[in-house]
């Protein structure tokens, strides 16, 4: 179950998308996410789907790999859809006991579900094709101007990259501790919710301890190598735009134009 977390994981492959400058990908993601919440009709979602699946196809990451990432958000998806289904006022279709399903409810439930799925798929393509280091480099560079208004961009980027880097480590650690406790007869599957939560203690206590241990070790190692924040720090691989990045920006601009067209033309 824990192996299914694909958020923040990198999938190595040799594709155009992998080679793109992270700034392009970040910009595209931002635009894509905003567009998902602007669209109110099917034409818009069709456009987003086109953009998304083109992206996925080019990235050469197996679709099954991304769908696995969706499994972890099924609960959120169902809850969101149910809330929208039952709590949207409008023209009543079905009514029973205290529940009322409206036409508007169905529409907004489906829209919300599609939005969430597209959101997760889109963002996971980006993280799957970009190493955490590239991602934070891109973020740091894109947000660079904010430094002027005293926002510690480098520190935020560093925290993000460490957090992302630690996701697979902690997942692995969790698996290891889980196995060790199962070997001692622990049971993480059966029982009701309260029992299950109680059974998690042998897993969570060692996990927290190890997370703190790793954090102090890392801090010590960084200090030993004279890390002192972003000031005057140079990069081993500075980001440079190439021709393909220009092409990618063009594609993104076409998408932007598409969004505007859909918003204006399709009612």
């Amino acid at each position, binding site marked *: 179950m824990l192996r299914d977390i694909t958020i923040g994981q990198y999938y190595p492959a040799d594709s155009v998308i992998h080679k793109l400058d992270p700034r392009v990908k970040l910009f595209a993601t931002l635009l894509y996410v905003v567009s998902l919440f602007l669209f109110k009709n099917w034409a818009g979602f069709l456009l987003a789907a086109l953009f998304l699946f083109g992206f996925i196809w080019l990235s050469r990451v197996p679709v099954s790999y991304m769908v696995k990432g969706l499994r972890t958000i099924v609960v959120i998806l169902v809850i969101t859809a149910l809330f929208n289904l039952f709590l949207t006022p409008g023209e009543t279709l079905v009514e029973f006991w205290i529940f009322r399903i409206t036409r508007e409810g169905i529409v907004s439930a489906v829209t919300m579900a599609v939005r969430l799925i597209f959101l997760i798929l889109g963002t996971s393509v980006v993280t799957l094709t970009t190493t955490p280091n590239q991602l934070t480099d891109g973020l740091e560079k894109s947000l660079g101007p904010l430094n002027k208004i005293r926002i510690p961009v480098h520190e935020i980027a560093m925290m993000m990259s460490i957090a992302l880097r630690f996701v697979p480590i902690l997942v692995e650690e969790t698996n290891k501790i889980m196995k*060790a406790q199962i070997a001692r007869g622990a049971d993480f599957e059966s029982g009701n919710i309260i029992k299950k939560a109680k059974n998690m203690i*042998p897993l969570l206590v*060692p996990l927290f301890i*190890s997370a703190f241990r790793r954090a102090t070790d890392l801090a010590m190692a960084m200090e030993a190598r004279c890390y002192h924040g972003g000031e005057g720090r140079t990069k081993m691989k500075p980001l440079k735009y190439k021709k393909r990045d220009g092409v990618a920006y063009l594609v993104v601009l076409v998408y932007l134009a598409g969004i505007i067209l859909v918003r204006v033309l399709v009612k």
Partner: protein
Amino acid sequence: MILDKINYTYSRDTAYERHALKDVSLKLEDGQFIGIIGHTGSGKSTLIQHLNGLMRADSGTIFFNGENIYDKEYDIRTLRAKVGLVFQYPEHQLFEATVFQDVCFGPKNQKLPKEEVEARAADALRAAGLPENLWQQSPFELSGGQKRRAAIAGVLAMRPQMLILDEPTAGLDPRGRDEIFEQVAGMHRDLHMTVVLVSHSMEDVANYVERLIVMNRGQVMLDGTPRHVFSYYKELEAVGLAAPQVTYLMHELRKAGLSVDVNATTKDEAKASILKALARP
């Protein structure tokens, strides 16, 4: 315990695919003291996780006490209690408020009565060599070596028939290492358990085990007494493992014209052999 043609592949059908075990067939005799040696990534950790059912082979069967552990009716939980597995850095699994409570975790999961749980925990702590004045302390206040003993006791408390230890001395100083090995050897002797010791250092296990299994690239490369295995020291070098220093010394001495036994595996054997060779006129 009998393993018949075990195969296991990690992350099948992805870019990370790795064939970790290839047709591994083994027979682990009851009461034996066995060492499993292999380079990092040779499949030794994967192999031992199959022995107590934590990992399930893609193909092949495992028999324990004559029963197929992949049978639908077979209760894998009893297997896990019978085959105790001590992971690398086992102290990372400690979680209870006191050492004693932590050691009780295993037998408690076996649903034994309270007195039995506590008796087993006390026996296990004694067998692991942890002094009684530490039993009521928090496991996080102990020293590295003591933590490890507490964790080993946590597995011993389930009274396994077979005890598997994955690199039990990793990260310990030489004295801590020797103490743990002595303790394990003592457990094998006194509790009549089958003990499987996993390590990447020949030096460490040569002194204790009666049988050595060498793993390489997911396959069993050599299997026999330490004497037999170390006689292939050239082949071992080729796969990145080294025979104990004693073996090299003895070969050098033989080359220099001294008629010593090149198959001596421990320091004491070597000493006796050299003295004998020198005493000869």
